[in-house]
């Protein structure tokens, strides 16, 4: 709401088009986050984490399920770099980068780390 209000004020005082668009776009981005939070709150209601008088035993058990070490993130980062760096250097590099990214995303999706 702040971005929307300030964007409209900026529009009214004769601000530049880029600034007006950026502020209004920020309203959209903020709205995206706010919308997610609203939807989440509506769907799940108040969670135990948000209760004033809740305590650790109120949500207990196994701490969590976490991925073990994986080569995928660093490989994916390397591939992404090649993909973008290929724009100034050469399409051959982008193609290698795209292949690495595609393969790593595929492996990441199917990676169960048993």
């Amino acid at each position: 709401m702040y971005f929307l209000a300030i964007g409209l004020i900026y529009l009214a005082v004769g601000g530049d088009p880029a600034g007006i668009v950026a502020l209004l776009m920020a309203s959209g981005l903020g709205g995206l986050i706010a919308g997610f939070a609203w939807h989440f709150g509506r769907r799940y209601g108040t969670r135990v984490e948000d209760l004033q008088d809740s305590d650790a035993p109120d949500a207990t058990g196994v701490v969590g399920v976490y991925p073990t070490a994986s080569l995928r993130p660093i490989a994916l980062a390397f591939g992404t770099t090649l993909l973008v760096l290929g724009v100034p250097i050469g399409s051959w590099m982008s193609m290698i980068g795209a292949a690495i990214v595609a393969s790593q995303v595929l492996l990441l999706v199917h990676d169960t780390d048993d």
Partner: protein
Amino acid sequence: MTTIDRKPSAPTVTLGGDDPNHLVSIDSVIGPSGQEGTGLPTTLVGWLTTTNHKALGVAYFVASLTFLAIGGGLAGIIRAELTSPGQQVVSEQVYNQVFTIHGSVMVFLFAVPFGFGLANYIMPLQIGAPDLAFPRLNAFSFWLYVIGGAVMLFGFAADGGAAPFGWFAYPPLSGASGSPGLGADMWIVAIILTGTSGTLTAVNVIATITMLRTPGMTLFRMPILTWNLLVTAFMVLVVFPVLSGALLMLLADRQFGTKFYVPTDGGSPILWQHLFWFFGHPEVYIVALPFFGVVTEIFPVFARRPVFGYKGLIFATLTIGALSTSVWAHHMFVTGEVVVTFFALTSSLIAIPTGVKVFNWMGSMYGGAITFEAPMKFAIGFLVTFVVGGVTGVMLASPTLDFQLSDSFFVVAHFHYVMGGTVVIALFAGIYFWWPKVTGRMLSERLATWHFWLLMIGFNMTFFFMHLLGREGMPRRVPDYEPISNWELWNQLATAGYVILLISMVPFLIAVVKSLRGPANAGADPWNAYSLEWATTSPPVEHNFEWIPPIRSERPVFDFRWINHDDVGAPGVAEAWMAREGLDDRWLPLAGPVAADVADDANAASSADSDVG
């Protein structure tokens, strides 16, 4: 996948030992760790493949401090060149590359990522989370940042050298004709990659704080550092995409012949300035807010007082976050193409929430039983330098003064007081504060005192005289100057200050080495601190907590330490603690889908015991 099982915890009857009025020691409650390992890898492959938030947090710290050393080294070239008139050290072209990469490294590769290091290591501990919400995304973000940083630095090896257009890359200088070399493209790619990394980290931070808080850790019980990281993450999501879009347009201009910023073909260089500073000014707060959080954690602990105006600080942070997105064009006053009144007003307004913060920091110390351990020394040092930088910031928000001072060394002085004072000094405050938590060891107070005073003297010598240079009209980003007025003297003093700054790192490095070679005997809570990270072992066990105290305020560890004293800690702690009797195997928070099964198992076991009885 790894599942972490619950562990039994200390019995409640041990609280306070034989003396019911005794303060509770966290160490006596948690005892020796029942878990193996700390989550930190021990091999190179382990570091390259880790997804643990603490390992990645340490990796962020090490990487960003390495970039600080590189950026500091480049600053040394600048200072060496400016020590006396004439050109002594590097050519004009190389000088341009050096100050460009110095600024870019410091802003994009050091300051922001160190904050992400805090978000990785400290934030989950502060909210009782066992990791970030998306560990692999977190690892991807880190590597994207490191590899992106390497791309920027490899620009020096490119034909024509690194990017030479300053860290805010104004076209047409940054266009294909202004800076034709590959190094400029590599700079753009590097910023796109690190920006993407930051955006993904922001998503991770928001998801973690939203979803993984431990029961009782309501939003208004979160430590201020966590709040500031949350607001920072929102700001990243709002402004980084704008920068990425602007950079893609710049890359398209350079590589594909588009004309977004080419004035002769209908494009607008001013468009770049708007888009860049729409990112660039909030970026200052994206850098600063985590460090505001750091000192807000430190002042109350060493003044033995609760933080003054907890909610006021949160609303000040929110206000800064919002206002920072509507002040960008004060960087563009001299273009004559902006609504000066609007931006002068909003830029001045931001001094109000910032002033609230300074007031609250002083209020947190006022009347307290202050002790000056290393973190407190550096936090106070931060406060002094930040206020100086803030005051010159208000001066520059005034268009009348800005027209005179724009592009002078005064701006360099202001910027370094704000960013240097905020980041570097608060960074060391944070390092001294959380070093025992991360390593289990203490740092030498004696060496820290040397470090502090040398740093303060060196920092102020280096940057104070730049105010005078700027006032006398010396422009920034020049490799040479005429020996007029006191320019040579002030430049020499600034260079001497830089040398002292370098020397100040010696006692710190000695302290680090000595500490790492010493025994890990810091204990869980060496500072008698307040927030949740001090309720676990030092260093923390693999998924952070085997035990969590009841949370009834923003100071759960303080409350628990004083649990035997009525009316000192937050109400309800003792009751919550007593309610745990008989639930020793059900103390851990943050259930996954498996949790319900575990709880059912526990209930079934309990029923079976009853049946037997």
